[in-house]
Every structure is written in C-alpha cells, then in structure tokens.
C-alpha cells in the first residue's frame, strides 16, 4: 500500500507517473491489490485508486506469468507447441488443444475422422462443465462462502479429471489432440465410465442451484453489481459467458459450426442485465446445455480410427499460408492464428486469449463500486493468468 503523489514515486524507486494527481489533497488512496492477493486467481495486480471505499480508477497490471509462449512456438515444430498449449488455460487444456489443432488443420486442410470429432466434443464439453463448476465455486468463495461451494464443485471436477487421466494419462496437462485426430483411442470402458459421470452431473447442478441460487446474501451481493453494457461488451471484443451474460447472442459453436456442433441441439443461455448474477446464471445454464450435448454425443459415438492415417506427426511442413482456428472455449473465443512460410516451424504464431480480452473492461465494470465488489467483479470475469500473460 502506498500513498499517492510524490511519495509514491520515491517508494517505487522508478519514474512511474502517479495514477492520479492529487497535490496536497491526501484523501485518495492508491492500493495495489495483488499480485499476491488470494482473490486474484494467480499473479495479477490491480492498481486501484480509492476515494474512501469507492473505486475511482483501476489499472490492471499483468505479465507476472509471462512465459514467452508465442516466441517459443515460433522456434519449434508444430507438434512441439501442442503440450505448451495445455499450459495456457490450465483449467481447460483440452479446449486449448482443440483450438490449436483446428488452426493447424485449417492451415493444411487436414480432415479429421468422425470418431475423433465426437471424442473432441465430449472432452470439450466435459472441460466446460468442470471449468464452469469451479469458476462458480471460486466466485462464491470470494463472496465469503468459504470453502463449501468450492469443495462441492471440486468434488465433481475430480470425477471429470479422473476421466481425463484415464484417457490421456494426465489430469490437467492432457496433450491429447493431434493434427488430424486424437492421440489415443477411447476404450468402451472409458465411454461407459463417462456416461456414468455424465448421468450424475444433472443431480450436481440441481444441488448447486438449490444450494445458493436463491440465497439472499448472494443476490444482494451480485445483482446490479458490475454491470457490463452490451454495446461496450461488443465493442471491446468480449466473448464467452461474459458477453452472453450481457444479452448478446453470440456463441461460436452456433456461429462457426466448427467440428460437428451443427449436429447437436442445444440452446444458448442469455442474460438480461449484464451483472454478476447474470454471468453466474449463464454459466449455470451452460452446464446444463453441455450435459445435453454430452448425452447426445455419447449416444452415438461412431467406430473407426481416431487419427487420420495420412496425418503427419514428424517432419510436418505445411505449405506457405495462414490459418485461424477458433473455438468456443469455456472462457470465450479462443483463437490461434498461424502463418506458415513452408518451414518446419510457424513463421507467426498468435494466440487470441479470451481471458486477456475479457479483462480489458474490468475498469469500466468496477468504477463506482466498493473494494469488496471489485473482487467479485473480477471473479465473475473468469480468467486464468496462464492465458492472460502467456
């Protein structure tokens, strides 16, 4: 914590312009929330200027977890970037795998076998369920419901992670998809286990809804707080549950029909007010829609190979060109943009991370609210720092 004005500059030891110019007033307080604040989901800092309890300015500061992801990928083969994409949004490594795989498949025009497409949908929707469950758990934890809702969410997540582990070998760093399919085939036993877990998910969502949805404290803390107007959301390029919470009907599964999503029937939940409660509810309802997609997909998983036999793993040199693959990741639009110059490694590799772009409107949502609400608003954005900083 540091006071604004000349003191700040001395304390910081470098020529940082103060966020506000309050010569001699001494009433405004500049607080650095983070990077070690437990509510910041990792290492993220918000430089907040406070007038009493009210936020009048907020500057997000990130980069603490920067790992040079894009530059690393440009110096390596296409295959070698696949395990690194697990580490972008480490909650949803399978979605990341799919987005990157899709970008490379678009770059080279690689077809994907039917069975692999089904497996991808199943895994991506399982990822969405566990991500939303734990996001809501974290949000409630930050609201003061210490532990219990988060543990309920993690109990469910645990079952899904066990499925991931028995299929891909790893709980979080799955590294499962390849250009032109998936790495290993799912056994019938695995599909049965998945059906069993999916059959138990609606009960979990019901329980979670009964648990806190009508809780008066939760409603008082969430409703009307952190409102994101739809026009601002569209102009800022917000995507995912954040955008749909503001009432904009935009889901890439519906818009792009990537993979085989046009075969499944599902609805896109939309919010009315764009506040924290709407984002919370959109995630809740999306879990239900994901479960319905899972049920449809698990009903008829076709046989056949999971990998296109013509697909190349080693000595992969795509023709010069470019490709942009995007998917509806649990957090929003996740895109990978690749330019190939015909060499073994991409000439340009760019990630469009939903977390980073959803974070850009943080100040607009927080202005005028209390410090305690900043934590909630930030929690409702649902970011993972691995993806923000890359």
């Amino acid at each position, binding site marked *: 914590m540091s006071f604004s004005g000349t003191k700040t500059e001395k304390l910081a030891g470098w020529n940082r312009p103060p966020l506000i110019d309050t010569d001699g007033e001494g009433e405004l307080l500049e607080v650095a929330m983070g990077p070690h604040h437990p509510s910041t989901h990792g290492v993220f800092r918000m430089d907040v200027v406070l007038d009493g309890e009210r936020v009048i300015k907020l500057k997000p500061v990130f980069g603490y977890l920067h790992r040079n992801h894009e530059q690393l990928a440009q110096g390596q083969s296409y295959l070698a970037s696949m395990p690194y994409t697990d580490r972008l949004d480490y909650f949803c490594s399978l979605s990341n795998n799919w987005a990157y795989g899709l970008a490379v498949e678009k770059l080279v025009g690689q077809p994907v076998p039917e069975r692999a497409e089904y497996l991808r949908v199943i895994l991506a929707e399982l990822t969405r369920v566990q991500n939303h469950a734990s996001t809501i758990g974290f949000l409630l934890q930050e609201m003061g419901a210490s532990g219990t809702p988060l543990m309920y969410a993690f109990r469910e997540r645990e079952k899904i992670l066990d499925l991931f*582990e028995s299929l891909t*070998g790893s709980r979080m*760093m799955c590294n499962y998809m390849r250009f032109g399919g998936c790495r290993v085939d799912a056994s019938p036993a695995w599909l049965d286990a998945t059906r069993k877990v999916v059959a138990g998910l609606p009960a979990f969502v019901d329980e979670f809804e009964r648990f806190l949805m*009508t*809780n008066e404290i939760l409603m008082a803390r969430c409703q009307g707080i952190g409102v994101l107007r739809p026009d601002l959301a569209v102009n800022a390029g917000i995507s995912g549950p954040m955008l749909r919470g503001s009432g904009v009907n935009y889901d890439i599964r519906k818009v792009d029909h990537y993979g085989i999503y046009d075969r499944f029937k599902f609805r896109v939940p939309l919010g009315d007010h764009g506040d924290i409660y709407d984002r919370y509810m959109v995630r809740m309802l999306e879990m239900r829609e994901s479960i319905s997609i899972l049920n449809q997909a698990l009903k008829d998983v076709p046989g056949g190979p999971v990998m296109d036999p013509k697909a190349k793993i*080693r000595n992969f040199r795509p023709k010069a060109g470019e490709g942009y693959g995007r998917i509806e990741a649990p957090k929003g639009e996740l895109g990978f943009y690749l330019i190939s110059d015909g060499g073994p490694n991409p000439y340009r590799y760019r990630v469009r991370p939903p977390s980073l772009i959803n974070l850009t409107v943080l100040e607009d949502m927080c202005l005028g609210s209390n410090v305690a609400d900043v934590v909630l608003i930030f929690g409702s954005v649902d970011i993972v720092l691995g993806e923000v900083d890359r």
Partner: protein
Amino acid sequence: MLGDGILKGLAETARNFAGSFVSKERMTTVEYPEERLPLPEASRNFPFLVYDGTDWEKGLRCVACQICEKECPPKCIYIEKSKDKKPDYVGKPQIYPAKFDIDISVCMSCQICVEVCPFEAIKMDTQFELATDDRFGGLLLDRKQLARSNEYYHEIHPTEATEVDARLAGEKAKAEAKAKGAAEAAAAKAAGAPPAGSAATPAAAKPAVPVDPKAAPATKDAEVAKAPVTATAPTAAKPVPGTGTDGAAPMTPEDKKAAETPARPSEGEPKA
C-alpha cells in the same frame, strides 16, 4: 420470506454433511502414503528407457537415433552416440547411446518422445515420488537410472506393453526369417567358444561406469579377453548361448536374451 434461500442452502449443506458419513462413495479420503489409489493404466510421468533381458546395458532398445532429442519440446534430453555397435533385438548391429541424460527438472512429461520413437525404446513411467535434496545431480538422470526392464513396463502399462511386444516379435520374426542362415552360422561358431558369451557379466558387475566413447572399443576388447578367466563361475547359472536360437517360441525375456547372445560373440570374436 427473507431468509428462505439461506435456509434452503443450509438444508443442502446438512444433507451433504450427513451423506458424507453414510454414503460409501462420499468417503473419498485416502491416507497417503500408507494408502494409495491405483494409478490408471494410461497415467504418465517422466520417461524411462526400456531394456530387454536382464542386463540393462546390453538390452537397451535405444539406438541413439536422436529423434526424441530433436522433438522434445523443452529440450531436456541429451544423447551421445557410441562409436561402436551392438546388436539390437533382431540381431542387427546398431549404435547405442553412450550417454543418455534426461533432466527431469526440465521435462514436462508430455509423451512426445514416446510418440516419435520408432524403436519402442522410450516409454512413460508412472513413478511420481521423485523428490530429492540434490537439485543438480539428483534431477539429471543418466541412462543407468533411466533403464527399466521390459517386465517393469508390462507391470505398469500391461495392454500397451503387450501390443508393443507383439509388434516387436513380428518384426523380429521377419528379420529372423531373412537372416536365419547367417544366425545359424554364428550360433555354430559361438558353440565352439562358449565362454565368450559371458562377456555380459563383467559389464553387469560395474554398470555405473559410463562408457567413454573414445575408450569404448578398447575396454570392450579387454572385457571380452578377460571374461573367460574372471567370470566363468557366474555364467553357470545362465542359459548356455546357442541353445535358444529358434525364434518360434513366444517372446519371453529369456528367449529374447538367448536370441541376442549368439550374435554377441560373433561381434566380439573378430576383435578378440
């Protein structure tokens, strides 16, 4: 009524609390390390090198082609090729890794080395209790520390290992059909000089010494020459080389070793 929602939520908590004492599947606590959950077969954690038979150094399947070194995303593998050759599982002379180091403080267990290996030589382990207080040497594993027997591989990944064995057996049968005449000639020669087959024993007795690539041919000669004098007694328990050359039997490790042994003297003899 105000407070309705809170009460409803508390009822849910109470149900969960009570359920955690009654329902069997809710009692999920496992008292590690006394109690352990079985790992799923697919689970992976750091690679190891597979060897056939009982001698890790002779049986290593790795032929130092360096593909894994090239493809490894974080570049945690370091391989030095040998100057001389040793026979692989089909009896074809191949170079072997004089040095094979994996820095597991860098390795991220991504399995790409396993995917790209054309010789089924590197596989994923399931060992995860690798904490050490020596953060420099302790996390840099050399080829001796990395070597695990095929039986161990069968133990941790049974389905996968059986597939691999079947594939290798097929390749071996093909290679054997091709080089049967040559192998028989070598076996006949080897039968004339049985102690030469025990060259494996001195190497097994001091496996910790890494093979210096420059000195390798010289030491090998010395070992082969010494073998009849120093190591005749221990070999008594071993299968006599030259008896197990027929490739029709299923691929038990003993068979593999026996199939390899006749080729070894044929390699050693011109030098000795």
